[in-house]
């Protein structure tokens, strides 16, 4: 337990994340949106490790890490405890996609079903990065990871991303949103809306990881943008289970996004895999259709 020096930003520089780390940016934007009156619960993963090597901490707000999988349950207890003491701090979880989609699912489902007034933010870098780039339920189709390696008889990850926002919306969450670090103001606005909405709210923020995906650390924001521009990531909001707003785009072919990342290199070298690229394009097309994100000829760009 370490005190934070005075006069620092809420998420202070000097942490140990890789240069160009998407999740580190998400943490900073998150605290900009919440302000000081918040208690943050973190799960085990890159963010916990790069932000709190004892005796240093990058967190200028009260912060707790317990385990990989229990952030939502710890947050439930904190919220109940604050309520009992008549205190008003907001409770926010920030957890990786592995902690959220896979191992923490039980605790999240319980917390959402019970209706705790917490905001759960998943920083989605699409794999377990802290243990060395293994697949999670958030890993996209055909991405090569160390546990879903591409090979002579494998396309890489064989399953599409699990639809966590829909699962949490089905729990009756009053507010569910997706966001991207490429659009900081939008992410911050969504965080503010979530913490001001009573009940359990969920935000999944797309946070490219240069190390795990294999791109230059100066390219993080571009990569996040390309995910949106290809339709492979959609920024949208859901209130009480209904999609309210999805960001419209003039779509680019998925190849522009895939070809710039090492995790998809097997789609291009040694032989081009048009079949797999076409399959990923179909996923993007289905996203566009489902959320109505295509800008048609006369529509203004949002």
């Amino acid at each position, binding site marked *: *337990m*370490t*005190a*934070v020096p005075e006069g620092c930003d809420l998420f202070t520089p000097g942490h140990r994340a890789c240069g160009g780390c998407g999740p580190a940016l998400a943490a900073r934007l998150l605290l900009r949106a919440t302000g*000081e*009156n*918040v*208690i943050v*619960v973190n799960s085990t993963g890159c963010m*916990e*490790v790069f932000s*709190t*090597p*004892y*005796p240093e*901490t990058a*967190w*200028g*707000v*009260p*912060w*707790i*890490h*317990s*385990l990989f*999988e*229990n952030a939502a*349950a*710890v*947050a*439930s*207890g*904190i*919220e*109940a*405890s*604050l*309520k*009992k*003491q008549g205190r008003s*701090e907001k409770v926010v979880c920030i957890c990786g996609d592995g902690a959220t989609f896979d191992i923490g699912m*039980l*605790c999240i*489902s*319980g*917390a959402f*079903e*019970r209706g705790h007034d917490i905001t759960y933010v998943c920083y989605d870098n699409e794999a377990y990065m802290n243990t060395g780039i293994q697949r999670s339920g958030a890993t996209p189709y055909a991405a090569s990871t160390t546990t879903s390696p591409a090979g002579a008889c494998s396309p890489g990850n064989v399953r599409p991303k699990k639809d966590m926002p829909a699962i949490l919306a089905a729990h009756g969450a009053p507010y569910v949103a997706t966001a991207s670090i490429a659009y900081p103001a939008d992410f911050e606005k969504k965080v503010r809306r979530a913490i001001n909405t009573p009940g359990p709210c969920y935000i999944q923020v797309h946070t490219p990881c240069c190390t795990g995906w294999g791109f230059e650390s100066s390219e993080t924001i571009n990569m996040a943008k390309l995910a949106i521009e290809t339709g492979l990531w959609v920024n949208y909001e859901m209130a009480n289970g209904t999609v309210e707003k999805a960001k419209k785009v003039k779509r680019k072919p998925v190849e522009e996004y895939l070809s710039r990342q090492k995790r998809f290199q097997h789609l291009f070298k040694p032989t081009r895999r048009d079949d797999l690229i076409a399959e990923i394009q179909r996923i993007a097309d289905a996203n566009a259709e489902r959320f109505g994100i295509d800008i048609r000829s006369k529509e203004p760009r949002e």
Partner: protein
Amino acid sequence: MLEIMEGSHAVAEIVKRCRPQVIAAYPITPQTHIVEALAQMVADCELDADYITVESEFSALSACLGASAAGSRVYSATTSQGLALMFEVCFNVAGLRQPIVMTIANRSLGAPLSIWNDQQDSISLRDSGWLQVYAEDNQEAVDLHMIAYRVCEDHDVLLPAFVCFDGYVLTHTYEPVSIPTQEEVDAYLPAFNPYQRLDASNPLSFGMYATPDYYMEFRYEIDRAQHRAKEVFAKAGREFARQFERDYSAPVEGYRLEDADTAIVAMGSICGTAKDAVDEMRDAGKTAGLLKIRMFRPFPAEEIRDALKGVSTVAVLDRNISLGSGGGVGTEVKAALSGSGTAVYDYIVALGGRDIRKKDIAGIVDLAEEGRGDMFYGLRTEVL
């Protein structure tokens, strides 16, 4: 005033009077009556607590951890498979130094599935950093909860505690108990005063990761706190005795030990049977005695050595087994007495709810005196 009530309800009554602000628990036999009774008290506005109906034991203890870190007194209860599911959180709670009190309604662990009593569950978590005390009867179970909160929350300790009492044998048994009044409990147990808490006006980071430069020192501090807990427990026990005239200040208790040649060593409700067995053996001219271990963590090795000075043979009754080794209590008693010249034999008894009677205990004493021990006692060889 003595009242006849079920053990579980007696525990629920005292927990209520300890004024937990947050309760999170998940039902499991034979703990269930405790958490049901507390839920009813909350529903009836008799207990002003937030009762979180979690979806698993793993979440129960996780929620307790969060609530405690945010500055509330918390309570949970579990047993057996439930405690096993909490394993990871148990270590974490102790490492984060949260003074959570949890009742363990001791039960065996599967497989095979068994809902009956032994002490395998809590013993298996002996290395987790939680203090562990074991009650012989329901009065002791009630009283140990008050003392446990006092000890855990003491700023010289700041560790969690299991208050263990045997499933069914105590949880479901109606016995006369005296439940202190709210005023009496308030006088003994002050409101929770957290050493540190999650608080926006004083931002602290809890549960950071530690490199090899720091990890060992954290573990050392927990170990020191365990050892200090013995002193704090003795003091809390003495004050309890002054107020309630029931004395639990010693981590071990001797029964007819003064001149004993052979001593039985045991924990929990089996001590009641063992006392009767000692009386009968005494009547038959045998100088037997009993050493009851009340506190298993921190382990009272010194007190055990003192209490067993002059005893030539010790028979440990273990209601648990570290498979491939021996009983948990026996192993530690042997270590405590090594070099003393006392012969220590370990007996694995009454696992999974099997009965153990006075004549069994007398038989075990005979075996020990013949130098035959370190065995499962009472096996039905015909089904092997």
